[in-house]
């Protein structure tokens, strides 16, 4: 019998049974890959247990959360090994879970796409994420709300894995806002400080602006393709030949808006600097290595849409170029070590975005840089946390200096990250960033010169501000306060830093061997077009880049190592002042959006109570036969009138009853 309860049983039944496999490139999952949902479920189970378990789980909760994060890594590693065992063509697998939403013509099942691209993210997120869990065991040891912190970290890992594993834009959206929620909760983790609470709100609201773009993109997809799963949307986008440019451009731009919010790209970059209010491990994991790169993932995943919309693709490159310079300039002026790193993150994601907008010549390198950046930037953030740990939670680099002696491991691991981000061969960043610069110089007309130029100049500025940061912190004269007694952090914190530093040093080299990484991704991102050469010869480009980098380092050495660094910041030039204020991003947003919004809200509230309500109230009073307005309503004629009307209705009904 088909019943209401029966339909519930039916829904749960399909959950177990799964749906018929999709046809096409992604095969139905076999072997352990079918358990990919464990990747999401394990960390989410941890978060649930810690949040619902309450104080009872205070003691063992953080350790369990860490263990569950490692368990997710193990699951990911097994699936990865399984994937390696298959041929390149059959590596992408589809795990269909259950019928999720069926509403009218909208039909979608929840499922996961386990392919080469999502696997890169799974390994990055679970490995770096688990290391940061371990580090946090030390960093957050004395925080009374430690359990809540680990619950949120687990929530983040689960949501991030859902984001990268989802096989439809709608399920991706769930992970997308899930990581946003975790980010909001962790930025505001110490929200007894009102400024931190504001930072958390800012992050969420700016991201919502981006998510508006994602929503509109979903509307366009459903309208245009009648579906929102990757298979249909991307398959049909790839099959388009020049038709429906307008639609595809709109779709691409809306996706880009979403990516800009999540990845702090211009013009939605303003939240990232303030997000440093969160505990430092959070900055390392969420606001450097993983979540903020989700925008790049979105663009690369949606490659067929952008291939069909060259205008949108161009805008991606422009946004990336602007942001990489924007972040680099801001990074030069920040004295707060975490905010300087945040600006750098923004700038580096700008590089990835630029690469993602270049098309097949850039996709693989966007992801490659995302991966190496995940290691070296997370490592440097953990290093910054270690410095703060040893310096009474100070973040002002003008009060650091000469820390290399006191914190040898921190200095060495940070130093490897520094070399990596500079792009010094043979460290990791060189293999990914230099390739992006090369790719930016490929093309015709003005584009390679403008975009390549931006990427090249950005590399020089990066060298300057990162060296400034490194020297101001670890070298030069000691500018410590009297009560500062810097010391190395405990082993539970240094070991994750060492592991990440090893990755910063060698990951790029290893993965570049035989073009290993690029060919791994090729089935997803497409092959690099043959015969695409930069407009400047590669050896010349390489020399130029290294010269600019050396120049940046030298300049920083002169000003921040050789010369004394004043403990209070000098007034600085107009550019410095602007950079300190993040190029006036908040002022612009306030003038254009916030203040008009507040005025609109206030005047509407006033109009609603005085205008709309007053008019209606006056009318009601008029009906009541009295001109002295609402006060009379309470005991005046209107009340008896209304009650009489009600009584009348009842009486009529009664009379009809009697007649019958």
């Amino acid at each position: 019998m088909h019943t209401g309860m029966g339909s519930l049983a039916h829904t749960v039944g399909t959950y177990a049974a799964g749906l018929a496999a999709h046809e096409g490139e992604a095969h139905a999952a076999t072997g352990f890959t079918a358990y990919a949902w464990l990747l999401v479920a394990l960390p989410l189970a941890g978060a649930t247990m810690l949040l619902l378990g309450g104080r009872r789980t205070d003691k063992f909760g953080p350790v369990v959360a860490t263990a569950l994060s490692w368990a997710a890594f193990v699951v990911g590693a097994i699936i990865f090994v399984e994937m390696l065992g298959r041929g390149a063509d059959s590596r992408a697998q589809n795990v269909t879970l259950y019928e999720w939403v069926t509403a009218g013509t909208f039909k979608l099942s929840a499922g996961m796409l386990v392919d080469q691209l999502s696997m890169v993210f799974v390994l990055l997120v679970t490995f770096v994420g688990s290391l940061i869990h371990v580090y946090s065991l030390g960093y957050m040891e004395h925080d009374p709300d430690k359990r809540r912190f680990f619950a949120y970290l687990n929530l983040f890992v689960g949501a991030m894995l859902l984001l990268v594993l989802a096989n439809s834009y709608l399920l991706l959206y769930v992970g997308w806002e899930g990581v946003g929620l975790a980010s909001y909760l962790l930025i505001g983790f110490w929200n007894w400080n009102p400024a931190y609470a504001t930072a958390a709100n800012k992050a969420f609201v700016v991201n919502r602006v981006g998510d508006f773009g994602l929503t509109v993109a979903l509307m366009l997809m459903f309208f245009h393709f009648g579906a929102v799963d990757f298979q249909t949307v991307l398959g049909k986008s790839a099959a388009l030949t020049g038709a429906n440019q307008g639609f595809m451009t709109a779709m691409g731009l809306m996706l880009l808006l979403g990516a800009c919010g999540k990845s702090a790209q211009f013009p939605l970059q303003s939240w990232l600097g303030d997000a440093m209010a969160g505990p430092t491990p959070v900055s390392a994991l969420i606001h450097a290595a993983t979540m903020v790169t989700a925008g790049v993932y979105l663009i690369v995943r949606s490659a067929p849409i952008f291939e069909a919309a060259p205008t949108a693709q161009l805008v991606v490159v422009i946004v990336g170029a602007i942001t990489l310079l924007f972040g680099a300039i801001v990074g030069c002026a920040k004295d707060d070590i975490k905010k300087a790193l945040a600006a750098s993150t923004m700038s580096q994601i700008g590089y990835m975005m630029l690469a993602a907008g270049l098309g097949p010549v850039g996709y693989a390198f966007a992801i490659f840089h995302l991966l190496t950046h995940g290691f070296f930037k997370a490592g440097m953030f953990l290093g910054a946390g270690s410095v703060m740990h040893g310096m009474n939670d100070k973040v002002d680099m003008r009060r650091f200096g000469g820390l290399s002696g006191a914190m040898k491991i921190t200095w060495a691991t940070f130093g490897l990250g520094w070399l990596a981000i500079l792009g010094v061969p043979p460290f990791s960043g060189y293999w990914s960033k230099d390739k992006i610069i090369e790719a930016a110089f490929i093309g015709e007309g003005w584009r390679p010169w403008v975009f390549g130029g931006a990427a090249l100049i950005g590399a020089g500025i990066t060298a300057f501000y990162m060296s400034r940061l490194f020297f101001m912190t670890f070298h030069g004269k000691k500018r410590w306060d009297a009560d500062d007694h810097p010391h190395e952090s405990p082993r539970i914190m240094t070991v994750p830093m060492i592991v990440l530093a090893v990755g910063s040093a060698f990951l790029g080299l290893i993965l570049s061997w035989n073009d290993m990484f690029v060919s791994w991704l090729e089935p997803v991102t497409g092959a690099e077009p043959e015969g695409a050469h930069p407009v400047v010869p590669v050896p010349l480009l390489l020399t130029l880049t290294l010269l600019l980098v050396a120049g940046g380092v030298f300049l920083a050495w002169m000003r921040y190592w050789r010369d004394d660094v004043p403990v209070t910041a000098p007034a600085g030039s107009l550019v410095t002042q602007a950079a300190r204020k993040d190029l006036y991003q908040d002022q612009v947003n306030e003038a254009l959006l916030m203040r008009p919004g507040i005025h609109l809200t206030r005047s509407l509230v006033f109009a609603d109570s005085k205008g709309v309500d007053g008019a209606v109230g006056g009318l009601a009073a008029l009906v009541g036969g009295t001109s002295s307005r609402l006060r009379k309503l309470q005991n005046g004629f209107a009340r008896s009138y209304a009650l009489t009307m009600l009584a009348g209705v009842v009486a009529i009904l009664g009379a009809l009853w009697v007649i019958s």
Partner: protein
Amino acid sequence: MTEMSTVPWLTITGLIPLVGALVVAFVPGTVENAKRLALGFSVLALVVGIVAATQYDPSSTKQFQLGEQVSWIPQFGVSYSLGVDGLALVLILMSLVLTPVCLLAAWHDVPEEAGPQGGRRTKAYFALLLVLETFMVGVFAATDVFLFYVFFEAMLIPVYFLIGRFGGPRRQYAAMKFLLFSLAGGLIMLVAVIALYLQGPGGTDGFLIEKLTGLSIDPTTERLLFVGFFLAFAVKAPMVPFHTWLPDAATESTPATATLLVGVLDKVGTFGMIRFCLQLFPEASKWATPVVIALAVISVLYGALLAIGQTDMMRLISFTSISHFGFIVLGIFAFTSTGGAGSSLYMLNHGFSTAALFLFAAMLVHRRGSKRIPDFGGWQRVTPGLAGIFLVAGLSGLALPGLSSFISEFLVLVGSFPTQPVAAVVGATGSILAALYILLMYKRMMTGPKPDGLAGVRDLSLREKVVAAPILATFLVLGFFPNIALHVINPAVDKSLSYVHTDSAVTPAAEGSTK
């Protein structure tokens, strides 16, 4: 059109609370026992309702099931006729779940009074809530237009007394305002109801919906009739500019009343739009669409902007509802199956979402003794558990993906886009405003340094946890398994849309571009 039931399930379900109300009000006993009895009767109604739901067959071709029909006033064509489609069933179940939750939340709403008469007010309060439950079942189950009207108006009586006798300092004013607005809408509808009957075939059961469906009415008359019904529903829903009674009613009434008023009663408005406006006046519905869509989008943005500007929690929550009702109406008048299903699901989700916001906010008000947002601050450190569930309620209000409200809002938007692209895109900005009104409220109330002098304030009690658990569970279950409800809703939506004759099975551009 109606599948008759051998057991009068709907009548039994509806009568249980009424019997409960009489027992609670008139059988002597302690107040505590009376409250327990009231809760017991509402739980019994829920159990019977679930049993009734198992008899429902989503794959049936009949519009109404669990049907009952008795001639009531044959001279005037009125029958006592009940029956449910998927939407009505879901809304009845929602009412049946929310009532016991509200009763439990309302445990200490009425201050204890000393003396022999002490418990009478409390008993009256619980009895009125049960009476309201009976009418809620009736209004969704009525398949006779006149019977619907009777329930529609009868609901006003318990609500009027619930607001006017048990509310806050300005309760008299709020109750009267509510009554005037509702009566004004209702009387216009009464005229339309009678005029509609005169257009129909007449006879001893001439008020049955099935007798009045598919009439060929002269366009002007049809439009007038549509307007008559629509105005009453727009006041009830409420849509801008007929909304001003709601914030007053919600803030002056007790939280349980506010929950049932906004969460369930207001749904009669949007339910009525689908059941009566679309089904009985399809041509006029299409004629009125541009105006209705405009009002819906205005409601979305206006409600959200006003919510941002409120300093009273309860008013803020009621303005968020005005915004959400805008979404529901948008989905209904998009005339697509996806939009309609989204709106129907939205009605269900919004009931739980609003219940969570009102009831959890009330837990805070109870502790602080104030509804004003600025009177709070730093409460996450006073009552972390309560702050946590309040945040989840808020996230449901802003339609966070993963929670049930997201699915419905998303379906409304993607479902509206094919026919109303501008409205859908403009409406989507409402989700940015939603983040603002929820998170600003949370920030003002919960974050900041721990306030002094609140040492005696306790976190969630067991009773409060029992109130919260079913609501929060619903968020997650319907967020990840919305098909539980959609399987039942979809056929009802298709049926309603079949009257407006829009072919929603095809998304135009998809067919044009990819073949």
